[in-house]
């Protein structure tokens, strides 16, 4: 197995953290995992990209992901942008933070209302919905190789106490609610 995932969001949404969580979760599941941020001038609200790889063999390469199997779109606004879909393999998967979303023939599209989940769990920073944990939950479900237990431990490592609770709730709810 060799899976390449690319995550698209905006500064403040926790895109890089999400890709790290996915890689970490895969590792805990016994796979090899890697998370690669693309680093630019990171401003709140500005486009951000990160990638992750999951494999059953050690991952040696270190470049960005150019032909993802899966893309994860944190922000509805971006869905229609060409660069977001660029390189996505035919038959690949798109997981989109949205209420509902048109089917696209070439890809399998999953949607999850991560913003709502984040808002309802109080995951807001300076007016921003921090949707990363929800998106991780949804992606984990779609990938099908990450268990809820592992998700929990990945969340708990990062956020202690009550904040951890809320993030965990968001993660698991998205895990449940994502639909394709």
């Amino acid at each position: 197995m060799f899976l390449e995932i690319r995550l698209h969001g905006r500064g403040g949404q926790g895109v890089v953290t999400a890709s790290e969580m996915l890689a970490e979760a895969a590792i805990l599941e016994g796979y090899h995992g890697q998370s690669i941020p693309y680093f630019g001038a990171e401003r709140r609200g500005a486009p951000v990209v990160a990638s992750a790889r999951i494999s059953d063999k050690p991952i040696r390469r270190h470049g960005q992901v150019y032909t993802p199997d899966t893309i994860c779109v944190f922000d509805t606004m971006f869905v229609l942008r060409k660069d977001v879909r660029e390189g996505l393999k035919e038959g690949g998967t798109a997981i989109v933070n949205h209420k509902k979303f048109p089917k696209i023939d070439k890809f399998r599209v999953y949607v999850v209302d991560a913003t709502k989940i984040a808002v309802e769990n109080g995951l807001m920073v300076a007016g921003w919905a921090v949707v990363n944990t929800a998106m991780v939950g949804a992606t984990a479900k779609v990938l099908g190789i990450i268990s809820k237990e592992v998700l929990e431990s990945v969340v708990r490592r990062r956020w202690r106490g009550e904040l951890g609770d809320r993030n965990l709730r968001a993660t698991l709810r998205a895990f449940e609610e994502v639909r394709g």
Partner: protein
Amino acid sequence: MSSVLTIKDLTEEEFTLPGNAACPGCAAALSLRIALKVLGPKTIMIVPASCISVIQGYYPKTPCRVPVLNVAFASTAAAGSGAVAALELKGKSGVKVLCWAGDGGTADIGLQALSGAAERNENMIYVCYDNEAYMNTGTQRSGATPRAAFTTTTVTGKLERKKSVPEIMIAHRIPYVATACAAFPLDFASKLKRAESMPVRGLKYIHLLSPCPPGWRFPAEKTVEVGKLAVMTGMWILYEWYDGGYNLTGPSKALLEKSRRRPLKDYLSIQGRFGHLKEEDLESLQRDVDEHWEEFSKKLGIRA
């Protein structure tokens, strides 16, 4: 020497074009926009590594409508000196040199070049926009970070006091030193105007407090409020120094008396970087402010 500019005095022309890469609510971007309105197109900017170098976005585009020479982090005032020499030699004395650097690039790694230029009294304007940390690299402490503030290299709060570059510049006895705050753009504009139009050649230095939403951890729309509170609580004093003496300016004029100052807590409590402070820390910082004013008020007496 105390003419204050009004909104009407500022040209409608923009010299930093919209669509740049500053964070939403960036006071540094705001101040630069104002500064270039005051100085106009015949200005060459020297910019070291800092948020302002990133704000310019990617080659081959730039938001800046004046020439900008990006230079290495430590070299701002030295590059300014070279530019001044060249312009004078070429007979272009109408063109101003504006060095525009962050607090890290001024109080820390650029201090030596600045001090050298001050001693040589190079004929230029130097603005330090002070967001009180290395913001471009993600909020590490600088010499100008205030005591107790959280940064990523002072996770339990900075132990040392803020280095005062304006006072250091005054010790250099250059013609003009002033402080300003981005929340009072007209005060800042007036000081720039004064610096620009001074009859004496030499280095004019303005130290501009520049609130930073992500670095100080407050919502973008609070930039002006935070800046105003910095002044109204007395944490940041607006003043000018020239001809050997100090003047308070703007709202600071009214704050000599302690009771007129807002409690420091008002300023600290709306910023995440002071979120870890306990009551006694707040009190200790309040004492710092009070002592600072006391010391400062004595200096006000001295005008040669």
